[in-house]
């Protein structure tokens, strides 16, 4: 069939199975927008800022596992999208971002709304393309999806000069069924010999710990992981990105590890003799001071990305491959073994002792709403079954600590880049994918203001997400660091001149609620969630002085957590 470049873009998205595109028009993409107008298979969701488009596409991808798609214009459209692209890149989220570019003959002339999009995005994409001619357009889009979704996933930018989408120039269109690239062949199967060596090491372990990250979520390997962990009765901890891949309510789960991880998870990391790292990348927020990391452990590391292996921490048994396939092989080899028992009852006793400290306890008698209580109430009201997105700060950590996720892909947050403004548009993306699911964004009064314009998008497209604002009046996480490390000099962390969030929400056509007393919270939240078809914005006034504990401060190891304001380091 003969199609113009603009029609090819839309048709290729259809052929790729894309149902939703989050975007914002402008000069360089007008031909594409005209092609979108003339069809119904691909729905375009008009956001209110290009950052919102990329975060929404990202949230969509995190919740579904399918690539998210965003479409923006050249110049400021592309630069506005960069934060969202970098966010997806840091968390390895499959996404295809189509950017308009000035017509080819104008490239390099400082034309109106020209930026070097390929240059600007190069360090924060898995790959990017400048489409050089109409005949390579369909193939390039195919490659973009292929690269974004295979191997270690990531965002891919396709920059399309306007003349290539000219409606008057048509060529024969065929969407390639398969693509192969001599320069790109991601490894999928793990090395069986290494897998056997790893199993031998695990079977001899006295104090094993499984530590898993976002890679397990990305690979949809939660079943295999759960089977393996339960077969061998192993203790397991998740990173911030890995929450939900193992059911948090299970007794073998030690909670999150790292800077704000639980006492039992971090102590187990410190004492372990065999660490089994799966789809995790030894991020500095997870490892604590690297010299003090797992001092007694042999380390097994399963990861799809060879470059992740031995990057920050030397490992003893690397296994490169798709986590799901590698874990399947683990299970197969283990199932062939007659004796699968691992006697680690002493280790469990030790762990239970650490657990009994109850490191997440907080003041439940408080007259002011504690943020922890607000998240626990949210968990109760949503039966622990909502999709929770978040922004960045204390509220994010409280959500991670106090909303135990039993399912994968339910916890959606910007872990790697730590992007304030992520939560609301990401929630929109999730709601677009799963209209019947409960979707709530746990946010702070500073973060929410970074993408609050998306409340209008929620209105236009009937995306009834719930916003749970833990309003402490401060950039709480910044304030906490200033309290600890700058003698309480709260430089620019007080969020003054806050809007009246209830009125603001109402002006967007939504329901606003303000809650100030602990006793009112559950009732109000139930009411909010009973309004199935409305966006409800809950302004929950929480204790402005609350801090996130436990905390591993800079330079400290996993065993040197601070547990409460008055506790010494342990």
């Amino acid at each position, binding site marked *: 069939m003969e199609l113009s470049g603009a029609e090819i873009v839309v048709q290729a998205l259809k052929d790729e199975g894309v149902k939703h595109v989050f975007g914002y028009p402008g000069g360089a993409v007008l031909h594409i927008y005209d092609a979108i107008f003339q069809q119904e298979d691909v729905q375009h969701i008009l956001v209110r800022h290009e950052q919102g488009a990329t975060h929404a596409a990202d949230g969509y991808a995190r919740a579904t596992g399918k690539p998210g798609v965003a479409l923006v214009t050249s110049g400021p459209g592309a630069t506005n999208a960069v934060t969202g692209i970098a966010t997806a890149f840091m968390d390895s989220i499959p996404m295809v971002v189509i950017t308009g570019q000035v017509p080819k003959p104008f490239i390099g002339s400082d034309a109106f709304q020209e930026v070097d999009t*390929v*240059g600007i995005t*190069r*360090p924060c994409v*898995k*790959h990017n393309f*400048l489409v*050089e001619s109409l005949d390579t357009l369909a193939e390039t889009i195919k490659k973009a999806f292929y*690269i974004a979704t295979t191997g270690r996933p990531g965002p891919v930018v396709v920059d399309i000069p306007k003349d290539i989408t000219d409606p008057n120039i048509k060529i024969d269109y065929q969407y390639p069924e398969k693509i192969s*690239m*001599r*320069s*790109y062949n991601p490894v999928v199967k793990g090395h069986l010999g290494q897998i056997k060596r790893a199993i031998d090491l695990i079977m001899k372990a006295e104090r094993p710990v499984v530590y898993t990250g976002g890679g397990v979520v990305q690979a949809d390997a939660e079943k295999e992981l759960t089977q393996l962990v339960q077969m061998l009765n192993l203790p397991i901890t998740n990173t911030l990105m890995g929450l939900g891949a193992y059911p948090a309510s299970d007794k073998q789960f030690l909670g999150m590890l790292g800077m704000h991880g639980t006492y039992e998870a971090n102590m187990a990391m410190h004492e372990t003799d065999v660490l089994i790292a799966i789809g995790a990348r030894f991020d500095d927020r997870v490892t604590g001071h690297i010299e003090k990391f797992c001092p007694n452990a042999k380390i097994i590391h399963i990861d799809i*990305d*060879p*470059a992740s*292996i*031995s*990057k920050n921490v*030397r490992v003893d048994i690397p296994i490169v491959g798709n986590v799901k396939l590698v874990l399947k092989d683990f299970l197969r080899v283990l199932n062939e073994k007659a004796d699968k028992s691992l006697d680690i009852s002493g280790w469990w006793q030790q762990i239970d002792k650490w657990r009994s400290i109850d490191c997440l306890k907080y003041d439940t008698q408080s007259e002011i709403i504690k943020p922890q209580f607000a998240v626990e109430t949210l968990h109760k009201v949503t039966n622990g079954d909502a999709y929770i997105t978040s922004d960045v700060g204390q509220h994010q950590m409280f959500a991670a600590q106090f909303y135990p996720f039993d399912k994968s892909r339910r916890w959606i947050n910007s872990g790697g880049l730590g992007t304030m403004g992520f939560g609301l548009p990401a929630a929109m993306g999730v709601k677009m994918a799963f209209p019947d699911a409960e979707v709530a964004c746990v946010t702070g009064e500073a973060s929410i203001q970074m993408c609050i314009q998306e409340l209008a998008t929620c209105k236009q497209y009937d995306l009834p997400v719930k916003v749970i604002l833990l309003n402490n009046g401060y950039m709480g996480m910044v304030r906490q660091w200033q309290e600890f490390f700058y003698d309480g000099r709260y430089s620019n962390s007080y969020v003054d001149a806050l809007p009246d969030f209830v009125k603001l929400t109402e002006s967007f056509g939504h329901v606003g609620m303000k809650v100030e007393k602990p006793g009112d919270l559950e009732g109000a939240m139930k009411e909010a969630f009973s309004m199935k078809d409305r966006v409800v914005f809950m302004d929950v006034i929480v204790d402005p002085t609350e801090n996130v504990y436990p905390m591993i401060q800079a330079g400290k190891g996993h065993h040197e957590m601070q547990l409460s304001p008055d506790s010494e380091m342990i």
Partner: protein
Amino acid sequence: MRHIISILMENEAGALSRVAGLFSARAYNIESLTVAPTEDDSLSRMTLVTRGSDEIIEQITKQLNKLIDVVKVLDLSDNGPIIEREYMLIKVKAEGNLREETKRLADIFRANIIDVTDCSYVIEMAGNADKLNAFIDSVGNEHIVEVVRSGALGMARGAKGIL
């Protein structure tokens, strides 16, 4: 340690900036970098000289391999004996006594004088970095007008090719 790394890449616009960008973004050191198409004009080959600990070199090769356009990375320094060559053009002052002396020096180093004026020579020379450095030292900075060097090229000895 100093490593010479060969990179075979798709000959696409921007390939060079992907490599250069990787090195600056990750604060790796580049001593020299050369690039040109090969006998297959869809491929370009780079020779990159860098320094770093074993851990850093391992990361460099892994990160290079991770670039989507990279077809093959070979750390030549880790793979047996290699040939290293660099090409240099050097313009030197050549007046009076210096004319004979410089010519003799060029002969000793098996360099060629390829341009002559009444007060200068341009000399071409190939060899490994040490040899070129030695020639520059022998001429002496005060007699050098300008120097341009290609950066190192490298290839493994023996019958095997990079692919």
